[in-house]
């Protein structure tokens, strides 16, 4: 399979503090990757680098064998192609929504591409994401889950090659999370999804990338194997320890479940 994304020794600092240290990995076309790590480990920052929104101080990032630089992302033709092909679903959908209606929100990217079948594509993706009935509604009034669906429709309408999703289930109720897992399963594009929810992670992809508390990549491989490796889980601080009771017996050990 063709390598679509390649990161070589990426380091990123914010105000003299490391957010990412020496991160290297590559992503093949069509892979579904789960990026695990506790809050503050650098997951969102990594996605922003891959989306060309911020730039590493050290290392190289290649998209389809092209070195991504600040200078390159100022070139109109390249930006147009890159932003169409690599899309980013932010954790808080409120930050992405600014158009007066759901229709305009989904059509926003398509209008910039100046393509002919905008109306058809908007309706298709609205239908697929279950927000068709809201097309004339201002997106601001929708629930968190519905906003998330509108944002997804807006991004997928561009028919991207890579979708980056930052904690996409954090705003969803259990029913919507179930819907999202099914939807993702049918989605046939390269995805990188961040989460710290271990029980959900296996539903989001097969390959896991794990960031440690000190912002290094400590695991790259089969997610199932990682979840069975207690030492690695402890290193990533993704397990917790607490007392619990079985009848009269009380004991204490590591847990991987979410509360």
């Amino acid at each position: 399979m063709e390598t679509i994304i390649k990161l070589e020794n990426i380091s990123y600092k914010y105000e003299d503090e490391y957010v990412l240290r020496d991160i290297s990995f590559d992503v093949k076309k069509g892979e579904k990757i789960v990026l695990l790590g506790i809050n503050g480990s650098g997951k969102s920052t990594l996605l922003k680098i891959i989306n060309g929104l911020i730039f590493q101080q050290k290392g190289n990032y290649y998209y389809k064998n092209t070195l991504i630089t600040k200078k390159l992302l100022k070139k109109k033709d390249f930006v147009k192609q890159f932003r169409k092909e690599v899309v980013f679903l932010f954790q808080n959908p409120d930050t992405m929504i600014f158009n007066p209606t759901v229709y305009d929100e989904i059509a926003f990217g398509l209008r910039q591409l100046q393509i002919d079948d905008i109306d058809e594509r908007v309706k298709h993706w609205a239908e697929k994401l279950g927000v068709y009935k809201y097309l004339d509604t201002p997106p601001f009034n929708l629930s968190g889950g519905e906003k998330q669906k509108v944002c997804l429709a807006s991004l997928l309408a561009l028919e991207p090659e890579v979708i980056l999703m930052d904690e996409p289930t954090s705003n969803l109720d259990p029913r919507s999370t179930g819907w999202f897992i099914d939807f993702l399963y049918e989605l046939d594009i390269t995805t990188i999804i961040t989460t710290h929810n271990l029980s959900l992670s296996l539903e989001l992809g097969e390959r896991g990338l794990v960031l440690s508390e000190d912002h290094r990549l400590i695991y790259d491989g089969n997610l199932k194997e990682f979840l069975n490796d207690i030492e690695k889980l402890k290193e990533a601080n993704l397990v917790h320890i607490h007392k619990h009771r079985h009848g009269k017996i009380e004991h204490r050990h590591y847990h991987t479940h979410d509360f």
Partner: protein
Amino acid sequence: MRDKLFLLFYVFGVFLFTIIHDIFVIGVFSLILVLLSYNQAITLIRRSIISVLLFNGVITVSYILYAIFTGRQWLEYITLLNLRVFALTYLTFFFISKVNLFKALSFSKTLTYILILSYTQILIFKRQLNEFKLALQSRLLEKPSREDSYNFISTIFYYFLNKSMRNTKEISDAMKSRGFFVE
């Protein structure tokens, strides 16, 4: 103690720059202030000018136009106004760069709480504003149209206004619950 002394110096400076109406005296005090901040001077001058440029620019131009049409003198008043605003802004930036505000206000529990609350809100809003900008950048395939820019700015304005109002209510309820506002 050092931070509290600086606070006293700051309050005295604000008082001084407000009551003096002589351009020469304000000019001398401003110069002293710049000399006191010797290695930060260029950064602080630049920051102060950028901060007041738009607001003072509009007022200055409007006043000059008004004075020309009504046949009034404007040079002295406009110079005094701009110099005073610059001096106060410079003093504030200088004060913030030198002082740990939390220590300076530690003599009052209420002021410290208010500072912590304000500071937390500023940090949250700053981070969210950055996310808004990045989210737009991520979705822009070309330069935004005037209508898109207008929609974006008005959405941010509405979002932060709404959020501030919700947060204010929540914070005030939380403070009440912790014993504030009790007569």
